[in-house]
């Protein structure tokens, strides 16, 4: 039995047994390659579930809307390792109870979706530990290196051009599992810290502050980057922050559900190379 069939069966069993009230998974999209999030509430519908290498979106953001988990019932969700890390962070930040999240875990390798054993976030601890020791994406690092090699002036020009495209649609924020704030900093208007107008200055501020807010929290699912309708390489900003968290503070976002936020904690011997 392929993974898709297996997980359809698992989903049906979970729903039938009442173990979960909802399965959040992937369905056919509007083109053959596209997959879209779908919500399955009865075992009869599991045939709509699709699982293959095109299922790349991190569905964990659908776990946090208010009210979904407040009845104490469980929800099953298809998650890649990045999504499992998101669930850990959401749990660490008290946005959900990981006991209520049944994970249908998979990864994509060589164009195939493969099952990952485990059902609850904590069962994936060894997997996440191995991801941490494997380090951050070398592909992203190569892209980031290209920027790092520029002069500051060139880098500023690069980002100025990129940010000038931003239309402040906030797709990056909306698609992000970590952006669960009831009120985003950009919507604070007393005082208006971030210029909401989508001119380059306002866009600069918005994109910088969002990256900062994701420091030590981004799991590199790439959701924002794909969602951006104007193709700003947001992944690079987030990668830079992840690198800082990992290299400097040994913090790998979402390693466990009791991980403390990297910016709400400290060590007395945190390195400081730049303070005069």
């Amino acid at each position, binding site marked *: 039995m392929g993974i898709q069939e297996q997980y359809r069966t698992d989903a049906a069993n979970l729903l039938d047994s009442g173990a979960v009230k909802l399965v959040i998974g992937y369905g056919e999209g509007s083109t053959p390659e596209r997959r879209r999030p779908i919500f399955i509430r009865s075992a009869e519908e599991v045939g709509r579930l699709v699982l293959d290498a095109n299922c790349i979106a991190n569905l964990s953001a659908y776990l946090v809307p208010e009210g979904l988990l407040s009845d104490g019932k469980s929800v099953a969700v298809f998650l890649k390792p990045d999504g499992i890390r998101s669930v850990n962070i959401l749990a660490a930040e008290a946005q959900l109870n990981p006991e209520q999240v049944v994970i249908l875990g998979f990864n994509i390798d060589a164009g195939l979706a493969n099952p990952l054993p485990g059902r609850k976030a904590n069962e994936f601890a060894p997997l996440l530990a191995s991801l941490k020791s494997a380090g951050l994406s070398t592909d992203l690092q190569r892209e*980031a290196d290209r920027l790092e090699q*520029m002069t500051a002036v060139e*880098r500023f020009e690069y980002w100025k051009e990129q940010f000038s495209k931003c239309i402040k649609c906030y797709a990056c924020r909306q698609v992000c599992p970590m952006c669960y704030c009831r009120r985003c900093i950009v919507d604070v208007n007393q005082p208006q810290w971030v210029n909401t107008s989508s001119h*380059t*200055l306002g866009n600069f501020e918005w994109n910088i502050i969002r990256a900062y807010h994701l420091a030590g929290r981004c799991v590199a699912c790439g959701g924002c980057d794909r969602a951006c309708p104007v193709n700003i390489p947001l992944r690079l*900003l987030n990668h830079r922050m992840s690198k800082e968290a990992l290299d400097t503070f040994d913090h790998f976002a979402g390693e466990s559900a009791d991980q403390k936020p990297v*910016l709400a904690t400290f060590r*007395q011997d945190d390195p*400081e190379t730049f303070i005069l």
Partner: protein
Amino acid sequence: MTETFEPKIVAFVCTYCTYAGADLAGTSRMKYASNVRMVRLPCTGRISPMFILKALQKGADGVLVSGCHPGDCHFAQGNYHARRRWTVFRSLLAFTGIPEERIKFSWISAAEGAKFAELINSITDEIRALGPFEQYQELQKVIETQSTY
């Protein structure tokens, strides 16, 4: 242009150490450059990264963030938290092309009036040499003008 460029520098400081250190420089009648404008806060822990961005928007050519030495924080831990935030935010700014030379961080205690005066002078010299932060200021100028079509 014969007039030398005088940079505008905004400093965000904690009241217990760096602000007091600056006061000490004053009571000791040390002399330093007049380019820095201080914003007094209770603790470096109160200094949000947005402050730095707003200072840049207001045309600052450089920013200084300063507080108590590690272990000396009046609030015990505020500067440790601040240090982490600075580490992260500073690398982000550098990555987006805001030169590290323009965003300075320091520990200056209430006893270090001389260090304060020297630092202000050296930062002012350094940023004067860098020239105005035109790239960022350009962003502000652009929004003050109507689009070209």
